[in-house]
């Protein structure tokens, strides 16, 4: 099953490009001209998202630098102890929605410090693998089309993240606990 998925992952992009170009040629589409026409937007989109990325990434970098995340972690840790959830995974739960590189950093830290057999390593692996950075996705996708009023999108993203954390805890407990 895993092997099959790995092979699929490797082949899907080359296959996709192959099929799209071949169908284009068969249908007598001027593929070179169409490609360059479409590709022109790449620069425009990247420049468009800069203000949104700056706003979100700077705010989150500041929060991480201030030590607020560690403070929050020390407040919640009694609750986690009560439910027998390893406290080491707490910074990860907080940082997961905010910054992808930070989440990966925290996870690598847990994994290398506690080692492969630790329960916290398994739990944090599942937490990191099952999520996308909500605020990054917000900035990129809404930034690209200049949307500044997000309505309930932030709430939905964060609720889904929260449910993800809870189910990661339950699933890990069920399989490895």
């Amino acid at each position, binding site marked *: 099953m895993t092997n099959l998925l790995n092979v699929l992952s490797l082949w899907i992009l080359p296959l996709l490009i192959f099929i799209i170009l071949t169908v284009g040629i068969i249908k007598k589409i001027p593929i070179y001209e169409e490609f360059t026409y479409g590709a022109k937007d790449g620069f425009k989109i990247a420049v468009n998202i800069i203000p949104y990325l700056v706003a979100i990434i700077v705010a989150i970098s500041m929060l991480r630098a201030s030590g607020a995340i560690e403070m929050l972690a020390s407040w919640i840790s009694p609750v986690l102890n009560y439910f027998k959830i390893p406290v080491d995974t707490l910074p990860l739960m907080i940082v997961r929605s905010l910054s992808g590189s930070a989440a990966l950093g925290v996870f690598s830290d847990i994994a290398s410090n506690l080692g492969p057999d630790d329960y916290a390593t398994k739990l944090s692996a599942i937490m*990191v693998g099952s999520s996308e950075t909500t605020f990054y996705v917000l900035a990129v996708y809404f930034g690209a089309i200049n949307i500044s009023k997000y309505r309930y999108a932030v709430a939905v993203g964060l609720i889904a993240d929260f449910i993800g954390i809870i189910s990661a805890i339950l699933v890990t407990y069920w399989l490895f606990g």
Partner: protein
Amino acid sequence: MNYIFYFLIVISIIVGAVNGKLQDVVDSVMSGAELSVKIAFSLIGIMAFWLGIMQIAQKSGIIDWISRTIKPVTRRLFNELPQDSPAIGDVAMNFSANAFGLGNAATPFGIKAMEEMQKVNDKKDTASNSMCLFLGMNTAGFQLIPTTVLAVLVSIGYKNPTEIIMPTLIVTLIAFLSAIVFSKIFQKLWRNNK
């Protein structure tokens, strides 16, 4: 979003001052700003490439074909989009790319989908219901194999790293479905309040 932005920054400054880390906070403004531009610029090349490929796919009718194939599902989910909207094909491409862990390829498809949704959006600065739903589904990060996590586990000598694939899939699926459910719930609540 205005309040979130305000609180993130104000809390950082206050907590930073209390912890004596104000210098770090100031430095992080610089490094954060620099990082944002780096991320944006690193997207340009790959974005241009996939947008070019997508343009060909669009002209040759492949996107239309995909949209028609998954229509039964998307018609229910994105019921506010016109039924012939190219956004639906882009959404499909975005999810397939994400599922295979191809984040770099998924982003241009997702942005393309957002642009198509923007075309039929009445208020250009405000997210439509379809946009919120699509964004929610994307933040759940549905992925078949968590490649980066596996790489880290292998590097620390984890004996059987593939054992985390199934649980991760279960969790990401739950988050994905709850994003859809909550988008739909919020959509109703939001309309009633206005």
